[in-house]
């Protein structure tokens, strides 16, 4: 068996990342998904429901909504990582990679790193559409860039859950189903769309510690001003937890699947 040095393994992974990014750019379905999802949510919540939710001041609601929608978009896009991996495995692409003299981990690491392009595009597009709907960053460029880095970090930590589910579930459709079951409660049981004070007690208790809520609050703080410290520590703890728990699980499941 050929031993591959870490530098070569890194190069292989970067080549695979290039493949993933190229697939994203060339696949119109992915691009449409990136554009349509945030746009639909903004139209629905800012225009259709915003006036009623905010008691007439839909601009104020848009200011609260856009930072949360950035998190929601990242959640939805993370599903694509698991689906893409499952599709490649089902179609036999990974069997082909196994027959090549490349690092065993390269296809997996490459997919995850390559998907950072999709995450970044999605977060930036959501913010851009927010601008069209009247949202404005009031804190400056540096906090905005910090927020972007934090959001990409969050997406990266999330994608290991997606990878793990992608390795366990048999078919790409199943992966999508399982991940949506996971995403629904953590996104709607959060402060993305409403403040926790308006929720029933049992739901508010979960909302206050939910990683999506914490990150939404950090986004609001970094983009429009407000407290950042407490929510940031909580969000970072969740992100670290996701990586510590799901990275080993994903790698173990990947190795099992690649046997």
């Amino acid at each position, binding site marked *: 068996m050929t031993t591959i040095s870490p530098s070569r393994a890194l190069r292989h992974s970067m080549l695979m990342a290039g493949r993933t990014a190229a697939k994203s750019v060339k696949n119109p379905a992915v691009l449409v998904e990136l554009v349509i999802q945030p746009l639909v949510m903004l139209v629905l919540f800012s*225009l259709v*429901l915003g006036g*009623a*939710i905010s008691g007439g001041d839909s601009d104020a609601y848009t200011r609260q909504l856009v930072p949360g929608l950035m998190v929601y978009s990242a959640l939805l896009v993370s599903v694509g990582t698991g689906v893409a991996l499952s599709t490649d495995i089902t179609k036999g692409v990974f069997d082909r990679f196994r027959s090549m003299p490349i690092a065993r981990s390269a296809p997996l690491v490459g997919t995850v790193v390559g998907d950072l392009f999709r995450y970044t595009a999605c977060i930036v597009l959501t913010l851009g559409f927010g601008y069209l709907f009247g949202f404005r960053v009031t804190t400056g460029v540096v906090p905005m860039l910090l927020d972007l880095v934090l959001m990409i970090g969050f997406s990266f930590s999330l994608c290991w859950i997606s990878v793990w589910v992608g390795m366990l579930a048999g078919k790409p459709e199943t992966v999508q189903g399982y991940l949506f079951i996971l995403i*629904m409660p953590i996104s709607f049981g959060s402060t993305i*769309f409403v403040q926790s004070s*308006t*929720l029933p007690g049992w*739901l508010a208790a979960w909302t206050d510690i939910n990683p999506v809520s914490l990150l939404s609050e950090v986004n609001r703080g970094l983009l429009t001003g407000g407290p950042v410290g407490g929510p940031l520590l909580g969000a970072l703890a969740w992100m670290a937890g996701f990586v510590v728990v799901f990275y080993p699980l994903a790698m173990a499941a990947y190795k099992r699947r690649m046997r």
Partner: protein
Amino acid sequence: MSTVSAALTDSATMLRRQVRHMLRYPSLILMFAGIPVIFLLLFVYVFGAMLGAGLGGPVGGRADYANYVAPGILLMTVASAAQGTTISVVTDMTTGIVARFRTMAIARVSVLTGHVLGSLVQAMASVAIVLVAALLVGFEPTAGFGDWIAAAGLLVMISFALTWLCVALGMVSDNPATASNLPLPLMILPMMGSGFVPTDSMPAGLRWFAEYQPFTPFIDTVRGLLMGTPIGNSAMYAAGWCVLIALAGYLWAKKLYNREPKA
């Protein structure tokens, strides 16, 4: 046997086929009811307090909003069941069973009618499940017996109209994936009407669209019948839209069905 009675007999046979499918796969009804129930729980428990306060009712909270949103969710259920028809039609068209039916001495329209009547049964079963869920989360209709009958009749009419449209959409589709996406606007229209918030809370352009699209009179009429709110001209518009959609869907589906199949 006259042509009409033969067509009725054949349609009854096709309906029996659809009901058999339903009994064999009861999970389908749960699936059609599932999305509306999720929306119901989501809007009552997550958005209910904020949206309810905006409705300005006596309670002005979650309880008020449950009463407001339930009729919209019932319409969403009807749309969800109609979407299922599109998938079952395209499945029949692509698996070759329809080609087999074409060679038999049966009324041509009966194949489509069977789908429509089967979908009506499925839609009403789904509506019943969603209605129970709505009652459990705090929906308190004030309707009398006559109002319930009228509301049920209207839901059947709407379901009939949307199902004919979805049959046509199923025949236009090449595969189940396309078929499941084509009727998606029907699921979104209740949200872009008076289903979830009053239309006067929307911005001008969107309000205009919301007031003139078919789901707004559908929802306002069902809400009026179940909750005793004023109906105005909505019932007339709802009936008009039903006739228009059913007729357009029927003629389109019939035209597509009568085309020679592709070799």
